[in-house]
């Protein structure tokens, strides 16, 4: 029967072109949606790697601060002490502008045995950065003040970078070259991946460098972890204190709000995409339903004939559903050919696994869609009275 149906479909390929095209287009749209959804889900299901709750960021203009390096170091030391002395503040650290959920991005390259590792997120952080974020250490240790005077600059790398550079071996104590391999840096420790660009973005390769006094002139951000009870009154006091200290504009942000905003950048376009795709799929479903319905009405005489020569109502219904499924399979083969190019060519830097899962989900989705759209026309075909159908031309 399968061969017979295939022959019938092949001989009617021109009439089936619309159906085939509809399925192909829907598959490609669904594949795009599922690729992103799978990718986002894969990222979402990975641990966040840090604790953003009760963390505030303080941005300040530093133009009015002294340019003298030593005086600036003393100023920051005093500022750190003053902030820590506030009962509502648990931890304080200075940071480059690209702290988690900020809109800043800073990257560098690394070299290991002649191999380049580009687009490594580069975080310049204070000694207490780990405490503020509650980042988990997987091996080695975090920075200590004496690391600033060691022969090789100490760095802490994240898990993804460690795997990329050192595989499954221990990274602590090993040296790694900077982007042009002129300076060797020593890996002090490895921390768990930190999803600093939101719940749906990958951690990527990241390295942390300790903030030294030479970087103070470029420092604009303080991160604080506050205790329970740090309210709007405290925020107002903190604002005044900071504005007085830096003699310039200050902005305080709550990291949980920044996180929502960062996640929104992913969620909102995705929701819009899903809504548009849903409308398209509804239209395609109605189209498929219409095409199948039209085909059945056009093939009433054939249905009557098949009933006369030995087909039961069920076998007529099954035949029509099978025909729709075979047509869907032909479209899916073509669709999969195009879809497979995405993981093969690493398009959009999405992992191949996300693409393959998306292909599988899209294939299942299309089969379910076609099955649902063909069930009712199939049932109607089964109900066609053979004696009446045989009088149709």
């Amino acid at each position, binding site marked *: *029967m399968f*061969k*017979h149906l295939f*022959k*019938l479909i092949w*001989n*009617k390929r021109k009439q089936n072109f619309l159906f085939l095209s509809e399925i192909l287009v829907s598959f490609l749209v669904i594949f795009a949606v599922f690729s992103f959804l799978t990718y986002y889900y894969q990222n979402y299901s990975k641990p966040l790697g840090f604790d953003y709750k009760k963390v505030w960021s303080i941005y300040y203009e530093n133009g009015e601060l002294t340019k003298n390096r030593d005086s600036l170091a003393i100023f920051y030391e005093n500022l750190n002490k003053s902030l820590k002395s506030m009962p509502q503040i648990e931890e304080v650290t200075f940071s480059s502008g690209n702290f988690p959920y900020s809109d800043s991005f800073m990257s560098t390259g690394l070299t290991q045995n002649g191999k380049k590792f580009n687009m490594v997120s580069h975080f310049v952080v204070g000694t207490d950065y780990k405490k503020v974020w509650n980042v988990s250490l997987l091996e080695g240790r975090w920075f200590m003040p004496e690391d600033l005077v060691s022969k090789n600059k100490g760095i802490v790398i994240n898990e993804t970078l460690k795997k990329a550079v050192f595989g499954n071996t221990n990274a602590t104590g090993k040296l790694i070259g900077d982007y042009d391999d002129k300076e060797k840096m020593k890996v002090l420790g490895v921390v768990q991946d930190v999803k600093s660009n939101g719940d749906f973005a990958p951690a990527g390769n990241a390295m942390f460098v300790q903030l030294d006094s030479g970087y103070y002139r470029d420092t604009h951000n303080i991160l604080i972890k506050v205790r329970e009870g740090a309210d709007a009154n405290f925020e107002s006091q903190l604002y005044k204190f900071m504005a007085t200290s830096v003699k310039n504009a200050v902005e305080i942000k709550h990291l949980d709000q920044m996180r929502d905003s960062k996640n929104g950048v992913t969620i909102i376009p995705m929701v819009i995409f899903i809504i548009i795709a849903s409308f398209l799929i509804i239209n395609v479903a109605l189209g498929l339903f219409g095409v199948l319905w039209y085909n059945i009405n056009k093939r009433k*005489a*054939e249905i*009557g*004939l*098949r*009933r*006369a*020569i*030995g*087909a*039961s*109502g*069920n*076998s007529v219904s099954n035949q029509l559903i099978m025909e729709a499924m075979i047509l869907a399979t032909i479209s899916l083969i073509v669709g999969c050919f195009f879809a497979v190019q995405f993981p093969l060519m690493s398009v959009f830097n999405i992992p191949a696994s996300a693409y393959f899962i998306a292909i599988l989900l899209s294939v299942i989705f299309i089969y379910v869609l076609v099955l649902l759209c063909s069930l009712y026309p199939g049932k109607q075909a089964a109900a066609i*009275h*053979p*004696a009446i159908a*045989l*009088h149709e*031309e």
Partner: protein
Amino acid sequence: MIRLNNIEKVYRTDTVETLAINGISLDIAKGEFLSIMGPSGCGKSTLLNIMGLLDEPSKGSIKIDEQDISRFSDQKLARFRNQKLGFIFQSYHLINDLRVLDNVELPLLYRNSSAKERKLLATAALEKVGLSNRLKHFPSQLSGGQRQRVAIARAIVGNPQIILADEPTGNLDSAMGNEIMDILINLNKNEGTTIVMVTHDESMAHKTHRLVRLFDGSQVQ
């Protein structure tokens, strides 16, 4: 072979009730070639559909090969039609998107026969009707007479005991009609197939063993 007992068929709509067959009883013996005649709308095709188990009578009973088919399920009726009955229609009812050989193989698809066996039987059936050189043609590439011969091959491919022909020569000129009639007569004579044929053509009807005339749903001869 076929026993119709007091068959009635009523078509009902919300407002109208039409009596298409009015108490027809008929016995058709095995190997008989029977023709049914009558004016348009007298119930000939309805009666043939009832005999072919394509339609149910409103009243009365029908036995084929000593089996009371009134309690058959849809599945069982389909199997019965496939194994015992062959149909020939005035408008051939060939599937235009299938080649001649595939059209003839159709009834065998609803049996558990292999592709090889189907091809063998279909080729043999087409040889019987003189179309062994048209296996790969599409119906649209054939003349009316050839199409009807394909339809006959399709009807006989499963070796049915009964052939029901609804005006098989109705769309053909007299020469072609005679050719088709000769094939049916040979089938009846050589294979012993029981044939019931609805026709408007008196000369064709006279070539059969028995003629039944209908008028307004009743048997008048």
